[in-house]
């Protein structure tokens, strides 16, 4: 097994050397500028392009470019603006009424009106229709038509993040067409109102978008500037990079830092990096049955936090566009704050002292589970080793890691969480501390505070509840907040491209230089 791993490492190094040679031999660009087509390669194919029936990033990107939502969140100001809805008002804790925009048409010519909203929302809210990510829709009770351009939305419980979801994954489908063809038909021949329409789609292979020339003028997104976008699903990252180097690609994303650093030296390419909402953190299992009982002692958990040199790892390994976090949420999310929360500076001497006080002067042995960014986990292991904690790496698939967490078999886990790009802390911290199966702390007080924050529509009540919960988590070192993760894009130098924290590729904003 070890030989096999060593062999594979050797092959990876060989591939890396070859890739470095690729960078050295590259020539000038054959840009997509001349045929006004952005060629975008992505490593995963979505299972369906209907935004309600996939849970991969490229599906979210296609969703936002081909469809529209009732509300749009300005990525620069985080302000909510009317998109398919002109205006809305919170009638009571569980009811919102929307005035819809008139004169908007779907790509097939069908009018957008209250029927589109009512049909879409009631369809996706019905569990029988099996929307892939239930969390995106299971808060909706029903939608009712109040007029041709007026709709009432009722939520099952008080759901303060409703507008955030309506500005994100909850897109609007054409009622007549969707009733006729259903999700399967939307996948075969997708129809939205968005700035791009789908002109060709070969599942698992490619999707071609074309500018929607009839896009409604008042959209806060704005009309597409580039005529065509060809998205190809290329699983191999080296091949994606080769497409960029050969001038046959205009955009790739999720490029590893080392490759991005090399691509930056290629004359016809540019590297754009940006912080994302995805955060890294360590879960520490302090339940009664934990495989590492030392973790039940707060001094040990604090020692672990003090032992990790987060500043240095961010600077040297994670890279530009990342920052150190003091609480386990992304700073732009509503309710996320580190105000008043304990901070743990890098201090190995203090870590050793705390370990000695807890009865572990020589440290202890444990296991750390991880599933991505292995180099970051290895840096953490190295830091822990320096204070005497010997953490054996168990690197596995996400599903296997999660199995271990839920079965109570994982002590330390190096986790990441993207909050589904939902800019509200309710999409993040309650997952890990809300009392469900991923909660390896089970602090009733924290759970109650999170419930309070989740179940109020008063922003001040929410903010205060989340702040208290985050403070308690930090003060007790229940988990180790690490850093935000950046994403690296490699693009043709001819392309004007902006990276956003929600990892949304806004194709409609792109222009050629």
């Amino acid at each position, binding site marked *: 097994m070890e030989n096999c791993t060593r062999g594979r490492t050797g*092959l990876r190094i*060989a*591939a890396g050397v*070859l*890739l470095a*040679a*690729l960078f050295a*031999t*590259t*020539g000038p660009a*054959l840009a997509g500028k001349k045929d006004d087509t952005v060629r975008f390669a992505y490593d*995963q*194919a979505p*299972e*369906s392009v209907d935004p309600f*029936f996939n*849970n991969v990033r490229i599906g979210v990107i296609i969703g936002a470019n081909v469809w529209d939502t009732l509300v749009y969140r300005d990525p620069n100001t985080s302000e909510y603006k009317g998109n398919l809805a002109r205006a809305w008002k919170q009638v009571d804790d569980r009811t919102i009424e929307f005035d819809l925009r008139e004169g908007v048409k779907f790509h097939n010519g069908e009018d957008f009106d209250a029927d589109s909203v009512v049909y879409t929302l009631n369809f996706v809210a019905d569990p029988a229709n099996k929307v*892939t*990510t*239930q*969390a995106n829709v299971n808060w909706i009770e029903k939608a009712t038509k109040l007029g041709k351009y007026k709709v009432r939305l009722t939520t099952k419980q008080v759901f303060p993040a409703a507008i955030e979801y309506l500005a994100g994954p909850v897109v609007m489908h054409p009622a007549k067409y969707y009733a006729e063809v259903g*999700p*399967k038909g939307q*996948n075969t021949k997708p129809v939205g109102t968005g700035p791009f329409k789908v002109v060709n789609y*070969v*599942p*698992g*292979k490619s999707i071609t978008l074309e500018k929607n020339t009839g896009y409604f003028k008042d959209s806060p997104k704005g009309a597409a500037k580039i005529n065509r976008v060809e998205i*190809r*699903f*290329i*699983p*191999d990252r*080296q*091949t994606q990079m*080769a*497409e960029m*180097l*050969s*001038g*046959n690609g205009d955009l790739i994303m999720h490029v590893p830092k080392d490759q991005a650093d090399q691509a930056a030296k290629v004359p016809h390419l540019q590297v754009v990096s940006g912080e994302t909402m995805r955060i890294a953190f360590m879960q520490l299992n302090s339940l009664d049955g934990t495989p590492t009982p030392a973790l039940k002692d707060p001094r040990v958990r604090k020692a672990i936090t003090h032992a990790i040199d987060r500043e240095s790892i961010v600077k040297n390994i994670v890279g530009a566009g990342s920052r150190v976090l003091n609480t386990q949420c992304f700073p732009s999310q509503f309710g996320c704050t580190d105000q008043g929360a304990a901070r743990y500076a890098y201090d190995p001497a203090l870590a050793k002292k705390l370990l000695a006080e807890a009865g572990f002067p020589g440290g202890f042995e444990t296991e750390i589970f991880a599933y991505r960014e292995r180099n970051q986990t290895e840096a953490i292991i190295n830091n822990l080793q320096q204070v005497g904690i010997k953490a054996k790496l168990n690197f*596995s*698939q*996400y*599903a*296997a890691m*999660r*199995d271990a967490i*839920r079965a109570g078999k994982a002590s330390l886990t190096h986790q990441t*969480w*993207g909050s*589904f790009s939902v800019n509200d802390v309710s999409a993040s911290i309650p*997952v890990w501390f809300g009392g*469900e*199966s991923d909660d390896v702390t089970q602090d009733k007080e924290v759970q109650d505070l999170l419930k309070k924050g989740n179940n109020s529509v008063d922003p001040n009540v929410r903010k205060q509840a989340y702040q208290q919960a985050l403070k308690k988590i930090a003060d007790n070192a229940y988990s180790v907040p690490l850093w935000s993760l950046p994403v690296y894009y490699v693009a043709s130098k001819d392309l004007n491209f902006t990276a956003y924290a929600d990892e949304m590729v806004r194709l409609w904003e792109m222009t050629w230089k």
Partner: protein
Amino acid sequence: MGGYILKRLGLAIAVALAVSMIAFLLLRLSGDPAIAIAGEGARSEDIEMVRKTYGFDRPLPVQYVEWLGKTLRGDFGESIYFKTPAAPLIFAKLETTMALGLLSLAFALALSIPLGVLAAVYRNSWIDRLCLALAVLGQALPNFFFALLLIMVFSITLRWLPVSGSDTWQHFVMPTIALGYYAAPAFMRLIRAGMIEVLEADYIRTARAKGLPASRVIFKHALRNAVVPVVALAAVQLGFLLGGSVVIETIFALDGLGYLAYQSITFKDFPVMQNIVLLLSVIYVVLTLASDVANAWLDPRIRVA
């Protein structure tokens, strides 16, 4: 001969069944499929729903027997990921993979026959050693590494061929070379050995003594006999090339069965994955069987053994 074929057929079916069983188990043992399908952030209820919907809550032998029974009746099930029937999805990609397999085989033969002949004719000379070096290189280089080398030369530096895709014949050139080169050494060594043996035969000496030109002796009299075992090997190698296309199709984003297999593994799409494995193993087993039968037909000693 009939008994021999029946015996081999029985063995072939047993091999195909064993492969399908191992593939089934390996896929199931790599983590809970329900968690993988439900995705990041799924709640326990969602995972439980997935488990029940796909029947993952039943004992493994029950799941296996049910799947096999359905497959044997022609029901390949539905792709968990693409939410479409698995059979059309798989068979739509078979054409590309078959084309790549056959092209690679043709390339391997086109490369190995002349090299094998040259090595035999100039036995123990520098030409022989050069041919041997080429063969060793072919087997030693991992095909993904060789594929990247080809991309570097022909796509990035020379800009002659597209890096990836499957729309035109140009898209098949580099995958064919990358896959075929790996298969060539086995043919080359077989041809070299066969040619050396044949060239020492009495009838070749007679042909030479009659004053026939060297090329006629080599290609008409010697090669025809030396190439016979290659036909049997070609059948086995084709099966190997079809199975080995996963890496090459993934690198070149060639829209074939191997590429689909890669996606199915990534997304834990069991119905698709299991049926691809079964289909490829059946093809491999059928080709091996054909090769055994051809060998037995050509050489009666094998039938007796």
